């Protein structure tokens, strides 16, 4: 009996070690990724997506830009979309709204006015963003419009009020950081093509390391007011590897004031 107990203790110790090492190693294909002291993946760093999705999250051909004077420099490059299956399941009335949005996109897109881009758009705008992964919170700072959000990694909390960047509760599923974003207002768009959502949108983001310098990003969009079913976008996010790469400032308010308030400037005699 005593021997059996001793054997059990040895087996137990081996099993515990195995269990611990399995949880530290994580899933296959993500070897050598940066990790926190507790074994969780460490997403701290400067990141940027390289899609053309800010023009249009769906497949799109090249087009001229809004001002012919700017010629090729500000024309729109063709791009492969980030929507899985390329189809966005709009409700019929929402599809009509999308058409109108696209028609008025140069004035109606909230990006033009330097408004906070919301999630998921902030992730694939053509600007870098910084993640600082703390012990109870994960902070995201986006270069565009100094927008930011703090993800709560503790027990989920309810959005106190609707907001531009939403309310983020995060959790771990193995090596994947899953963030539920609720409390989104209805004023942000997905892109410059007029793709939009309502204030019932819930975004479920998934961040998984593909290798130490690339994150596989997925966002599932649920918004029963606008779409007939949930749909998903996915794309890689790359680490900015330049020497001394640093999040800079793009405080764009002052680039939009003439546009927003220009008609209210006192006329000069």
């Amino acid at each position, binding site marked *: 009996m005593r021997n059996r107990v001793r054997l059990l203790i040895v087996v137990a110790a081996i099993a515990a070690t195995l269990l*611990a090492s399995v949880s530290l190693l994580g899933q296959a294909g993500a070897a050598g990724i940066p990790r926190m002291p*507790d074994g969780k993946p460490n997403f701290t760093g400067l990141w940027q997506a390289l899609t053309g999705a800010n023009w249009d999250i769906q497949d799109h051909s090249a087009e001229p830009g809004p001002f012919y004077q700017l010629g090729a420099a500000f024309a729109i490059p063709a791009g492969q979309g980030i929507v899985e299956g390329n189809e966005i399941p709009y409700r019929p009335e929402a599809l009509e709204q999308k058409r109108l949005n696209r028609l008025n996109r140069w004035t109606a897109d909230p990006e033009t006015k330097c408004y906070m881009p919301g999630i998921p758009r902030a992730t694939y705008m053509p600007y870098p963003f910084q993640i600082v992964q*703390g012990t109870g919170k994960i902070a995201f*700072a986006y270069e565009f419009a*100094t927008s930011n959000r703090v993800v709560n990694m503790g027990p989920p909390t309810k959005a106190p009020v609707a907001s531009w960047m939403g309310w983020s509760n995060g959790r771990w599923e193995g090596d994947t950081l899953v963030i539920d974003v609720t409390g989104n207002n209805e004023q942000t768009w997905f892109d410059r093509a007029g793709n939009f959502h309502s204030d019932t949108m819930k975004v479920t983001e998934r961040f998984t390391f593909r290798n130490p310098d690339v994150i596989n990003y997925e966002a599932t969009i649920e918004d029963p007011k606008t779409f007939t079913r949930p749909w998903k976008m996915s794309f890689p996010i790359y680490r900015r590897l330049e020497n001394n790469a640093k999040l800079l*400032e793009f405080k764009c308010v002052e680039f939009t004031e003439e546009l927003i308030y220009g008609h209210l400037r*006192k006329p000069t005699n």
Partner: protein
Amino acid sequence: MKHRFLLSAMLVGIAALSMLAAPIAAQQRPANSNASTWTPPKTPWGDPDLQGIYTSDDYISNVPFARAAQYGTRLYLTDEEVAAQQARVQTAAQNALQEFANPNANVGTGPPGHWGERARNAPRQTSLLMEPEDGQLPAMTAEGQARDAAARRGRQGAGTALPADSWEGYTYYIRCITRGIAGSVLPVIYGNGTEIVQGPGYVMILQEMVHEARVIPIDSRPHVGSNIKTYMGDSRGRWEGNTLVIETTNLLGERTGIGGNGGGVTFSDAAKITERLTRTSGDTISYSMRVEDPKNFTAPFTFGFPIKQEPGYQNFEYACHEGNNGMMNQLSAARAQEKADAEAAKQK
């Protein structure tokens, strides 16, 4: 036998899980305790842990930037003086509650009192300025005086009677661009929340009002190139014992100043800012900012105050520009007034 093995395996699993959970539990901060015996907690990667949401509310309007003459070189109040301040703080809190007791008490056009934040604890300092010893701003250079006078002529804040000719006449704060590096930390009427999130190699300092997020690398890498200027500057951090020291350069000159919300004498593009953050108890950080701006001031100066965690205090999204109806309304009201005045003049 088989069952017994299964049970053992389950126990092993539970033991392994609790082994993994133990370091997480160990990260919990100790409760506020005596400062003299208190050791700051460390992050799991070994840095002093400053994380949390702090507010400078206790220093709202109670403590002047420069020191009153009566205190001379004395930075801290006596216990009796603090007790008198505490009575004032309590009276103010009770007055604020009256607003809820008498919901119709506020009949002005301004916002109700509960929009603001207020002190919970009496401040101990006689001034925010800590250096020089006399608690007064050092003399300005001739260049600085000329620049400051010109800046004041071309700028207005909220509530002034100057004509609202254009948004350009308003401060960067009223325009919802930024409050700048000093204006974002100095206590004001509301939005005094600062959240600190630390990751390995980085500290992020988030300020609620006008949603600033300062990313501070903790390493010896150089500042960005000198041709890159920003409103909040380029920051680098290092640990000196338990103190986070942040050095900031690359500021856009003549934008925001050394006063609340970025008012006051504006920084020049040569300014160098050194901030020091030390956690002195479970809920308090000692904060200071040293300003070296030789183009504007003949000597460096330092201001500071404690920032404190308060139960239930949290930050909200401050969508300033997105909701800047105030700017739209002031400009449109001014144009409408001019139009009405012109028509009245025609009819005379």
